[in-house]
C-alpha cells in the first residue's frame, strides 16, 4: 500500500527575478513499512522535499498524496489536523517542549488528539519503554542527554500512531553511541511494528541502515537504490 505518492513536484523560489528550482519535477512512491533515507549535498532540496512531504510548505506545482489524501488541497487548519493524525516528526534539534517532562512531551500529542487519559498513559509508558527511557519519564529535556532527548522525540513522533515518520537529520547532533542506539530503536520499530520512516541525512551510518536510499541533486532524484 502506498503511504506517500508524489508526482511532478516543483518548488520554485523567485530570487531577484531568477527562478531557483529547489525541487524540479520529483516523482516518488513510498510504501508502508519502508525505511528510506534521502541523501544529497547541501542545497540539493532534501529539507524542502521533507517539508513538502510533511505538509509544512506548499509546492509551486505537483501532487502529494499521503495515505490517499492530496494534502495540497487542505486548508491550513485541516493540514495541522492531518499532520497530527498522520505524520510523526523528528527534528534535528530534538525540539521537545522544555517545560514538559519526557512523559508529558510524549503524551502531549495524544492530548491534542483528545485521547482518553488511560490510553494516553499506557501508550506513553509503552513508547518510552520501547525507546529505552523507562525510569526517565519524569525528567525534563534539560535533564536528558542529546541522545535521550532524540529518543523522546521519536516516542513523541510515534505517539499519534502516524502513517509515517519524517526525520530531518535526526542524528546530526548525536555522538556515535547515541546514533547507533537511536538507529537500532527506529529499525526495530520499523521491523516489528511496520512503521514507515523517511529520513533526510548526511550520516553514512543512517544510510547504511536504510533499506532504500534516494539521492537528490539540484531538486531531482538522481538515484533510487533498494537494498
Amino acid at each position: 500500500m502506498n503511504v506517500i505518492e508524489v508526482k511532478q513536484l516543483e518548488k520554485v523560489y523567485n530570487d531577484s527575478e531568477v527562478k531557483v528550482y529547489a525541487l524540479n519535477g520529483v516523482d516518488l512512491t513510498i510504501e508502508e513499512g519502508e525505511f528510506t533515507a534521502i541523501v544529497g549535498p547541501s542545497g540539493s532540496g532534501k529539507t524542502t522535499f521533507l517539508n513538502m512531504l510533511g505538509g509544512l510548505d506548499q509546492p509551486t506545482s505537483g501532487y502529494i498524496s499521503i495515505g490517499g489524501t492530496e494534502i495540497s488541497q487542505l486548508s491550513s487548519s485541516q493540514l495541522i489536523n492531518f499532520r497530527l493524525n498522520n505524520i510523526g516528526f523528528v527534528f534535528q534539534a530534538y525540539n521537545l517542549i522544555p517545560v514538559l517532562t519526557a512523559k508529558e512531551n510524549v503524551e502531549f500529542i495524544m492530548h491534542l488528539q483528545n485521547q482518553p487519559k488511560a490510553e494516553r498513559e499506557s501508550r506513553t509508558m509503552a513508547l518510552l519503554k520501547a525507546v529505552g527511557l523507562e525510569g526517565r519519564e519524569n525528567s525534563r529535556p534539560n535533564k536528558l542527554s542529546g541522545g535521550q532527548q532524540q529518543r523522546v522525540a521519536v516516542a513523541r513522533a510515534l505517539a499519534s500512531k502516524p502513517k509515517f515518520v519524517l526525520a530531518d537529520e535526526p542524528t546530526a547532533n548525536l555522538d556515535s553511541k547515541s546514533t547507533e542506539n537511536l538507529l537500532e530503536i527506529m529499525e526495530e520499530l520499523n521491523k516489528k511494528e511496520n512503521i514507515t520512516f523517511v529520513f533526510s541525512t548526511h550520516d553514512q551510518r543512517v544510510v547504511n541502515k536504510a533499506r532504500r536510499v534516494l539521492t537528490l541533486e539540484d531538486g531531482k532524484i538522481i538515484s533510487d537504490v533498494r537494498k
Partner: protein
Amino acid sequence: MKTNLKLAWRNIWRNKRRTLITVASIFFGVLLSAYMTSMQEGSYDKMVDIVVKFYSGYMQVHQEDYWENKSINNSFDYDQALVDQLKKHSEIDFVIPRLESFGLASAGELTRGTAIFGIVPDVETQLTGIASKIVSGKYLQTTDDGVVIGEGLAKYLKLGLSDTLVIITQGYHGVSAAGKFPIRGIIKHASPELNKSIVYMELKTCQSFLNAENKLTSLVVNVANNDVMNRMLKSLKNEIKSPYSIMSWEEMQPEVVQQIESDRAGGILMKAILYIVIAFGIFGTIMMMIAERRREFGVMISIGMQKRKLSVILFFETLFIGLLGIASGIAVTLPLILIQAQNPIPLTGQTAKLMEDFGFEPYMFFSTAPEVFWQQAISVFLLTMLVGIYPVIAARRIKEIKALHGT
C-alpha cells in the same frame, strides 16, 4: 484545558526574573493607583461627610425662593402634613426641622459673624451626632434657652461655659433681634469653618428670638447614602410641589461637587499614565516571550497543535502575569489602606492652614470603599486582556516553516 493551563503556568516561569519584574511592575501599579484612589476618595468622603453629615443632610426641603435668597423672610410654616408625606417613604431615615439664620455674636469688645442653627436637639443629633462632639459642658435639652457654640468661636470671643453670648441679628420681617444666651456647651465641629462660627440653639428658642413662631427654613431629609438619594430625588422632586422645593446636597453645594469632579479627573489622568506604563511593561515581556520562542511554536504547530490552541496558551500566560500582579498588589494594598484609614495622615504647615481655610480638617483621609480596590483590579485586568490580544494575533500569523527556522 488543564494541559493548556499547565503549559502556560510553566512557561511564565521559564524566565523567572523577567516574569517577576513584570509582575512587580503591575504590583506597584496596582499599589500606587489604589493608594492614590483611596486617598482621593477618602478626601471626597470627608468633604461629603462634612457637607452631608454635619450640615445639609442628603436633601433639604425649603420654601421655593429660599435657596436663591437665604433670608428668614423666605422661611415656611412647620407643616406636619408635609413631614408625614416625606416620612411615608421607607427609605427616608428621618426628617429634621431647622431654622437657620446669620447674626453677629459678641462678648465684651469682640464680635464675629455667626451661623445660627435653631434645632430640635434630640432629632438633630441623629444626623450630625453633635451631642457626641461636645468637648465641654453639655448638649442642649428639649427646652433650653441656652446655646452650644463652636470651639473656635468660643476661643475667639474668649468665652467659657455659663458665660453669656450676645447675638444681634434681623428677625422675621425685619424685626430687630438681640438676645443674651448662656453657653451650655462647647462643640468641636468637624468643619473648621463652622467650628469658628456655629451657634446651636433649641428650635423654639430660636423661633422666639427671631420672632418667627412656627417658622422653619429647612427640613433636612436624610437617607442612607448617595445611591438612595439619587434614586429618590427625581420622584421627590415631582412629589414636592410649590411653595416648597427639594434639593440634593449636590445642588446645594455645587462647588463641592465641582471640586471633587475636577480632582477626580486629575486622578484619572495620573492613573491612565500609570496604566499605560504598566501596559507597555507587560507588552514588552510578552513580545520577548514570543520572539524567543518562535521556533518552539513552529514545532508545536508542525506536530499538530492548532494555532488557536497555541493562542489560548499564550493568552493564559499574559493573563497569569496580570493576575499575579493584581493579586499581589491587592494583597498588600488592602491591609495597608485599612491601616491608613484608621490612622489618617495629619497635615502640617501651610497645607494644613490651606485646608482649614477651605473648611476641611487638616488630615489626609483614606477610603476603604470596595471600588478603590476592584476598580484598579478591573482596570489592570482589562489592560492585560488588551495586551493579551497581541499573542493571540501573533500565534495565528505564525508560518510553521518560517517559525521552524526561527524567523
